[in-house]
């Protein structure tokens, strides 16, 4: 099987999905109205509510949602063979993620750009809103822990990536100052910054940075995790224009550059897929494909995190309601494209089946490492760059994406803790330093709790992260579905995905409960128990909300008839 066919079929399906399915959803289900006055116009304040060009908004939605997660997830999930991962990514993007992201933007824009969390309170119930907050907190906790582990593994495996990855942070600092203090035009620094990062790649190869084997009883990976959280603490406390904004911008640019490079290299080198279509000899101890596939690939197929982005900032800047389709649906398609190229890299970037098998000795192996090695092979074959250059560049990309998400994640966690401080009148929690230290402490506990002092086994929590992410997606789809039922429109296009993701994540959480208990990881058992209980409550809330709305709609109809 040639990888070009995968790329063309995948991208082609996404294009058709956007062209036809999203059009159908826009016209018949969400019924977008080009004359509707969006919050960006009706509540315009030039601070949060500003009508923004739809291409810019699409770029934001895309770069905010496409991070390290659609790389790590598919990188792990191809262990079951490329067909299941491919089908779930394509089907998920077309019928789940697209409708979910698009719906979140639409629902929020129709309700004064309120966030999905607030909408849950208004449309479903206050209990559901509390659930929503718990799920978000768990999600942020896991995302920070998992990404810290992922970055530390990347640094540990590719010491050459250390210098370029930190150089990107220095570049970000410079861009921030240039833009806000020197008021320079952004285009020239962007080109220079990208060129600089590319130049740092051979430098990193020349001067690889390795941390001592052990220091104060901590392995090299664990030292990186601690260093990363020290960095994240600082990054989340400094003003956003200093680091967060330019860093997010550079990550976005690198995403476009990386995607272009990889798809271009696939077209030129047309590698052959060496991984099996369905892996008949899955390593011992690997979990069953159903339901685990559907939580291992969360981002890239459907992810609740998108709803937070779509309803938080995107909906406040929507110029026309009809733009929601372009921004939401096509934005999530971009993430699908990243997941797709990861599948190609992790299945076609190896010389033989034996090499591929060596990459996947156990469940949880592969991940971003398979993406980096496979991707670098493809880059070397289909571009003027060498394998080493490709490997470092792709590692830097993964590190940048994961790091940017961590910065934002720690900051959001701090806000949640501060909000709790206000709600429960605990002044200490309202302090930004105390709240940040608590957030970082919780993440560190999780990162080490999962992997011991070596910080090695952190990827164990990856499926747990996926489960939480899918639960959040389920909650968002619930809000959209209830809204549709209320308006007497067909709700099955969001209801079926909701039932599917919620039940899959529930089953996955149950399986993991048994698996974690069996392997004696009691810390994670507790965490998983929390997820199972939350999942049960989400399902109960969903059922009760639907019954209530159905009854209400039924009554109105009866009244109209009589």
């Amino acid at each position: 099987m040639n990888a070009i066919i995968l790329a063309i079929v995948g991208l082609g399906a996404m294009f058709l999905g956007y062209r036809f399915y999203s059009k159908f959803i826009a016209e018949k289900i969400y019924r977008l109205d080009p004359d509707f006055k969006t919050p960006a116009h009706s509540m315009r304040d030039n601070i949060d509510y500003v009508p923004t060009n739809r291409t810019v908004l699409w770029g934001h939605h895309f770069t905010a949602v496409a991070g390290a997660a659609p790389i790590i997830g598919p990188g792990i999930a191809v262990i079951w063979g490329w067909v299941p991962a491919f089908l779930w990514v394509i089907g998920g993007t077309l019928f789940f993620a697209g409708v979910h992201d698009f719906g979140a933007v639409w629902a929020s824009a129709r309700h004064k750009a309120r966030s999905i969390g607030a909408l849950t309170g208004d449309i479903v119930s206050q209990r559901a809103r509390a659930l929503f907050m718990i799920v978000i907190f768990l999600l942020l906790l896991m995302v920070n822990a998992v990404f810290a582990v992922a970055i530390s593994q990347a640094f540990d495996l590719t010491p050459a990536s250390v210098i370029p990855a930190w150089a990107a942070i220095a570049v970000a600092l410079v861009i921030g100052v240039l833009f806000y203090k020197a008021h320079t035009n952004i285009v020239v620094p962007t080109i220079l910054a990208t060129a600089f990062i590319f130049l740092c790649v051979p430098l990193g190869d020349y001067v690889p940075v390795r941390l001592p084997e052990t220091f104060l009883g901590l392995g090299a990976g664990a030292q990186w995790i601690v260093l990363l959280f020290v960095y994240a603490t600082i990054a989340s406390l400094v003003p956003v224009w200093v680091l967060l904004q330019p860093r997010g911008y550079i990550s976005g640019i690198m995403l476009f550059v990386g995607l272009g490079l990889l798809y271009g290299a696939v077209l030129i080198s047309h590698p052959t897929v060496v991984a099996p279509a369905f892996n008949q000899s899955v390593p011992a101890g690997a979990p069953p494909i159903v339901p685990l596939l559907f939580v291992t690939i969360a981002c890239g197929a459907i992810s609740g995190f998108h709803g937070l982005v779509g309803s938080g900032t995107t909906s406040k800047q929507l110029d026309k309601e009809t733009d929601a389709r372009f921004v939401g649906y096509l934005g999530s398609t971009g993430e699908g494209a990243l997941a797709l190229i990861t599948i190609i890299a992790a299945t076609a970037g190896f010389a033989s089946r034996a090499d591929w098998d060596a990459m996947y000795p156990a469940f949880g192996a592969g991940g971003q490492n398979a993406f980096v090695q496979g991707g670098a092979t493809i880059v070397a074959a289909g571009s003027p760059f060498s394998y080493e250059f490709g490997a470092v560049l792709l590692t830097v990309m993964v590190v940048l994406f994961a790091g940017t998400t961590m910065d934002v994640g720690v900051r959001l966690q701090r806000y949640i803790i501060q909000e709790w401080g206000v709600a429960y009148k605990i002044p200490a929690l309202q302090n930004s330093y105390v709240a940040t230290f608590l957030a970082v402490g919780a993440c560190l506990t999780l990162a080490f709790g999962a992997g011991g002092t070596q910080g090695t086994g952190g990827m164990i929590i990856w499926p747990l992260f996926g489960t939480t992410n899918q639960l959040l997606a389920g909650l968002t789809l619930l809000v959209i579905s209830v809204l549709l039922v209320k308006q007497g429109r067909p709700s099955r296009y969001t209801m079926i995905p909701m039932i599917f993701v919620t039940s899959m994540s529930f089953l996955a959480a149950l399986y993991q409960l048994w698996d974690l208990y069996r392997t004696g990881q009691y810390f994670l058992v507790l965490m998983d128990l929390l997820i199972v209980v939350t999942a049960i409550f989400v399902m109960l809330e969903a059922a009760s909300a639907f019954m209530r709305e159905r009854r209400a709609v039924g009554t109105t109809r009866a009244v109209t008839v009589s």
Partner: protein
Amino acid sequence: MSLRERLRRVSELATEFYVAPYRGVIARAHRDQDDLFMLFVFSELMGVPNPATYYMLELQPMLLERFHEWHVRMGMEHSPLDGFRCC
């Protein structure tokens, strides 16, 4: 569209791409700073001694336009000052 115009368009879009996600956060931080400055300028009028009052006096008429917005934002429905009326 000429090349120059096209370049300008690209530059505009890139700037927007850079600015838009954090526009609200930065504008709010900016406003907080301005609010503190307002407090300095009008502190003496509200009975808070400020050694720099003399130098800030000539700023008062310039900031008067923003005065109403500021005191409302600070949670005072009406002007806290007796000396001149605001609303």
